[in-house]
């Protein structure tokens, strides 16, 4: 039963992803890609959970966990900064010579 519930979640999430971006204009494709890149940075949460449950006496487990958290945090932070910088240029106020 639980498996089926997760299957629902998978399928509905897939449709949602498809629908959410299907009407995005080409000019926003780059920020969108970088934005969705940021969203999967939520992998950080998973990395924290597995590292938080790693055996503190096992250097191997701690090292893998450290690696996972480091990469997840970099994915989230980098994805955010870069997307925000790009979108800042698409502001509707035209201070830099726009018509």
């Amino acid at each position, binding site marked *: 039963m639980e498996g089926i519930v997760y299957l629902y979640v998978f399928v509905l999430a897939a449709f949602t992803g498809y629908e959410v971006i299907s009407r995005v204009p080409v000019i926003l494709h780059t920020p969108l890609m970088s934005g969705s890149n940021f969203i999967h940075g939520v992998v950080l949460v998973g990395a924290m959970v597995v590292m938080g449950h790693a055996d503190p006496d096992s250097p*191997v487990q701690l090292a893998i966990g450290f690696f996972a958290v480091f990469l997840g945090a970099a994915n*989230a932070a980098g994805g955010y900064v870069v997307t925000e910088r790009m979108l800042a240029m698409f502001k509707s106020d035209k201070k830099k010579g726009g018509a």
Partner: protein
Amino acid sequence: MHSNLFIDLAYVAVAVVFILGLKAMSSPVTARKGIVWAGWAMVAATLVTLFFPGMQNFALMIVAMLAGASVAWWSGKKVAMTDMPQMVAIYNGMGGGAAAAIALLEFTKGEVHGMVAAALAVLGALIGSVAFSGSCIAFAKLQGIMKKAFRLPKQDAVNIVLAAITVILGLAIISADHPGMGWIVVFFILSLILGAIITAPIGGADMPVVISLLNAFTGLAVGFEGYVLKNPALIVAGIVVGASGTLLTQLMAKAMNRPIRNIIFTPITGEAAEGEAIEGTMREMGALDAAATMRYASRVIIVPGYGMAVAGAQHKVWEMTELLEEAGVEVSFAIHPVAGRMPGHMNVLLAEAGVPYDKIFDLEEINADFAQTDVALVIGANDVVNPTARTDKSSPIYGMPILNADEAQNVIVVKRGKGTGYSGVENALFYKENCRMLYGSAQEVIGDVISHVKSMG
């Protein structure tokens, strides 16, 4: 693994805000708000996770978080807009690597229980590893660390054999009750090699598609590992990105009229560039003539390419555009769907220079207009204006829709040298009767054109 209701509800709320944030990116007006919401949701998800039951190793965890976040934050703040594609690629690769590391740690702890969980863990590990090493290669290529397209002898056969071994190993791990660590480590190493050798031969106009595909891969990997951890935030965010990334990849592959399969398995490397011999010679022109041709034209279409971006000439190009418009010339910009190194990259660069959106047109919107245009100014673009794509069946870029710059009365091509473009394919446009070459760095050349236009009053 036990958690409590509050934490689970918080994850659900985070997933909802992520989806709304992505949705807000369908319009330039709301896009920035969307990413800021999503940013706060990410902070909330991270904080809530600290209270996850049974957590330990906090000191080391926080060091890892601060180190990863600050390195990425700092590099993301200082990177030039031109170099954005490789940064997106590397951050994406890190996400894939994190997903793979989660699987590896769960296997190490012996905490993957049940066939479905094991299958998704292995699948997520495979896709995540491929995304990680593939993105590292993409970064190295775009950053110019890895210069040449690298192709193994019998590349396709090697790919297939390696992929087959990896999959068989994966199946063995799934079906084993307690898979041996040796096999698991070999599986991860093979997955990493697979990602690297698949990405290594890909270059040029195919790069945006590959970056987008790897982004979708990381999303899927995160979603699958989310199932292993029974974490709804990971499942929803990962699968939403996986699905939207797949759609984006398809849109781009369609824009190039090349199935994704061909992009991966028969990349444009330039080796296959024999094609039909091109007749004629390239003719040069100076900045003064170019300035006069455009100043006294009634309509000019500018085709910006990566060469313009690399030279950082977008600000100069906009300055020239404003001058020409003051002189009564109608100027518009034509953007090929894969101009730049990331989908829509050129739009970002022009936005940075302050070019208003209503002067920027997509391929379909503007292609018919070239025939009624006096001057097409091609700046550092090559493959996207190559008429060979229409005529020469033997050319590796045959069938890719191109901007019909060659149909304009006059074509001026700003280019640093006589070499071929990123794809290595010779460009028939440069040899045409109505085309003149203006050699030099876009930054300097456009600067010269500006001073000449000014002197014409």
